[in-house]
């Protein structure tokens, strides 16, 4: 039984933070759910989409985050509760709509969920999206456990409806992807029927009075937060040190104090309602100690807020010493963990660090430093991107005018690294590859003569590649756009996108044709299978030689992981030992040294290349690589399932 839809109040389920958020939204009566996939947020909408048919709610993978939140806003205005979830970058993408929606207000409860990625485990930036709450005057909650994430998602919808304001739930990777037991509440029995009241308008003006209303909303939220169960204190009445721990960092602080045996001397104030700050509650905590440490993920958001608050009341509260990211007690970047908290507390209290641990770790370093090879990220075995970038590399070499690639966001971002032959030379945000490439091309009149290739994946192209395509065609930007169409939003878990014939819930959908879209904008389009590497190289070379505006090459081949789910590849690969000449060949281990597919390795005993039968998926792309033709592909005979 899917715990997301289990209607048995009080029962416990072992849930990931993201599952718990999805569950909380359902308990809060959400009926419209929209998101664009992005780690660590993706599982929220996945779970809701899984439940959508059973519970008769709407769930979609939107084309991008801005469209997601616009649709969710419409649902709210029609009187049904809604959500939009995204990773931190999505908040940037949708921020223009959010700041305007904040002024117009919402009707039914509506929650924006931002899943930030401290340490950038799966992101191109490390960003604290809590800025949006301050920017747009939105109440914001930050959970510490999956249980609390569920409760806050449910409460956030209630609060939003009560205030008539969009509310924000902010989590981080570590919570999104950690699992623990969650006690379920009940699912609503009744569903609302959406209806838009045409006697009302939703708009931002007159702006100043509406801006004032936003501030009154925050005051109301603050008074509710003063007694919120999401804010707690544990520790002595008078403490030697007080820690304010926001959201996910709470359990790390709790454990740090337990290990340091300081629970009876250091106070721990857990803050779950991070914007607006409940001033009275915060000041009451501040009276407990002269020394105050702020612990939170990414930016000093709570730290700055509480310091600003203190500045207004310091004569009443007395002298306080502050520690956190501003003074360097805690690092200003990377993920919070129990060790950095312990380190900060030791520093503040001038405690010595036990040396036994250091001695052990030094011993580990001495014994293992020389032994452990790095494990870099790389394209999967069978990945079409490896073949695509192989051909791009060879075509640019053939062209020999110092051409280069402007990259984009997806698995193929790894083309910055050796797995993609280090072909991409610039990568920024979703959809920026073509905008940047076209910018180079617009310098042609000033003597810029290097060929420029933009690469973009299918999902990223729909997300934010269409506007730069139109711009490049209109301005006759002479460059080549290579669309790496692998039929999925692969990086985040194969979510469907507008190019596919099914939607988030598995229902049939109308595919928006890539070729037709590009041709309608006025670009020429060529389609090619990247596994045919010679043909692909030649096609790229020809397109680079052409003059004129934007050319589009679609390299179409299903993502290898998806292909394996669809029954796998047709080949069984082997290396013919009599043909592989090893060191005598003169190829200098071309197949493994340069092509770097993890399915091939040099056998340490024979010195010859061999196929790793655990890793190789049988895509067959590597047969073209070996100058001796030693890599053989044979039809796969299906034995064991």
């Amino acid at each position, binding site marked *: 039984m899917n715990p997301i839809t289990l209607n048995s109040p009080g029962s*416990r389920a072992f849930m990931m933070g993201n599952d718990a958020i999805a569950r909380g939204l359902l308990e809060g009566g959400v009926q419209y759910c929209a998101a664009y996939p992005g780690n660590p947020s993706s599982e929220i909408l996945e779970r809701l989409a899984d439940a959508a048919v059973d519970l008769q709610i709407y769930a979609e993978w939107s084309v991008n985050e801005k469209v997601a939140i616009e649709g969710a806003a419409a649902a709210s205005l029609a009187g049904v509760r809604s959500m939009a979830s995204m990773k931190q970058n999505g908040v940037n993408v949708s921020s223009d709509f959010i700041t305007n929606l904040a002024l117009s207000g919402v009707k039914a409860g509506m929650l924006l969920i931002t899943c930030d990625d401290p340490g950038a485990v799966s992101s191109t930036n490390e960003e604290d999206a809590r800025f949006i709450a301050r920017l747009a005057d939105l109440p914001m909650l930050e959970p510490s456990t999956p249980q609390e994430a569920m409760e806050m998602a449910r409460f956030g919808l209630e609060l939003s409806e009560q205030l008539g304001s969009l509310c924000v739930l902010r989590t981080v990777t570590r919570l999104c992807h950690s699992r623990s037991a969650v006690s379920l509440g009940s699912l609503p029995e009744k569903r609302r029927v959406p209806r838009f009241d045409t006697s009302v308008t939703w708009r931002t003006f007159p702006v100043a009075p509406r801006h004032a209303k936003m501030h009154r909303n925050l005051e109301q939220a603050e008074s509710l937060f003063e007694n919120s169960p999401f804010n707690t204190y544990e520790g002595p009445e008078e403490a030697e040190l007080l820690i304010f721990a926001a959201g996910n960092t709470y359990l790390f602080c709790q454990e740090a104090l337990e290990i340091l045996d300081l629970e009876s001397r250091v106070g721990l104030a857990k803050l779950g309602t991070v914007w607006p700050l409940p001033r009275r509650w915060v000041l009451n905590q501040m009276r407990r100690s002269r020394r105050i440490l702020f612990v939170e993920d990414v930016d000093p958001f709570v730290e700055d807020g509480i310091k600003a608050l203190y500045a207004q009341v310091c004569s009443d509260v007395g002298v306080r010493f502050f520690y956190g990211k501003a003074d360097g007690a805690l690092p200003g970047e990377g993920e919070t963990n129990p060790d950095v908290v312990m380190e900060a507390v030791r520093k503040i209290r001038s405690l010595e660090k036990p040396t036994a641990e250091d001695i052990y770790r030094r011993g580990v370093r001495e014994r293992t430093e020389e032994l452990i090879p790095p494990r870099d990220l790389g394209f999967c075995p069978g990945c079409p991107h490896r073949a695509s970038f192989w051909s791009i590399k060879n075509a640019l070499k053939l062209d020999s005018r110092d051409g280069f690639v402007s990259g984009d966001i997806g698995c193929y971002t790894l083309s910055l690294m050796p797995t993609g032959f280090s072909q991409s030379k610039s990568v920024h945000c979703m959809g920026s590859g073509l905008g940047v490439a076209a910018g180079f091309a617009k310098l042609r009149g000033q003597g810029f003569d290097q060929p420029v290739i933009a690469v973009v994946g299918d999902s990223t192209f729909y997300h934010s590649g269409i506007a730069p395509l139109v711009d490049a065609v209109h301005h006759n930007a002479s460059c080549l756009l290579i669309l790496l169409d692998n039929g999925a939003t692969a990086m985040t878990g194969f979510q469907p996108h507008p190019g596919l014939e099914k939607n988030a819930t598995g229902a049939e959908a109308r595919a928006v044709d890539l070729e037709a879209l590009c041709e309608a904008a006025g670009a020429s389009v060529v389609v090619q299978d990247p596994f045919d590497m010679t043909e692909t190289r030649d096609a790229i070379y020809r397109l680079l030689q052409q003059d004129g505006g934007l050319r589009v090459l679609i390299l179409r081949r299903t993502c290898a992981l998806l292909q394996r789910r669809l029954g796998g590849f047709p080949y069984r690969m082997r290396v013919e030992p009599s043909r592989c000449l090893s060191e005598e060949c003169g190829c200098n281990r071309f197949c493994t040294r*340069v092509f770097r597919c993890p399915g091939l390795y040099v056998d340490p005993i024979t010195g010859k290349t061999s196929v790793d039968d655990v890793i190789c998926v049988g895509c067959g792309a590597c047969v073209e690589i070996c100058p001796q033709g030693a890599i053989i592909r044979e039809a796969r005979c299906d034995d064991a399932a």
Partner: protein
Amino acid sequence: MMQHDPTNVVITGAGGQGNVAAAQWLGQALMDEGLGVTVGDTYGLSQRGGSVMSHIRISRKRIYGPIIPQGRAHLILGLEPVETLRVLERFGNPQVVVVTNSRPVYPQAVIAGEFSYPTGDAIQHALKALSSRVYWIPATKLAQELGGAIMANVVMIGALLETGVVPVSENTLLKVLEATLPPHTWDANRRAFRKGVEAVRDSPGAA
């Protein structure tokens, strides 16, 4: 039967080895045993060739956070030998118990000839010097003999049980496996699990 509260387990490997699934099975089984458990996964872009790590925190007192503090692992379960070695620096200690699959998944830099992969002897030697007990298990080979390398993580879960470090029963673990895996694979997985149990039982073990 809980020697340490909290008991901390690290499961590590390379992307695609079934690391997260193994951690999820163990976490669910521990919850079913009535224990407080938190599982924290670090995967990010791991399926694209990177390292993967899960932390399992087990307690009767309360819920612990999803990150094990430095030097505080009681058991390291490695699906890949070099990854096992890699987590020791941050999470190991002289008392830690190590169970590792012996089969390498070669990193790209090794395939490309830029780095060499240590010999099995060198890895075992280092592991023994840095832990209290080491179990060196040919889990991938055992799984292949039963029909698929993908079951190596099930072999390793059987091995984990037999170390006695984690307060969970065979019955509970098998129930969880069967609740998640398709019925036609139950028999093979049950045998894979037993292979792991036997591998630890028959191993010389102690350093």
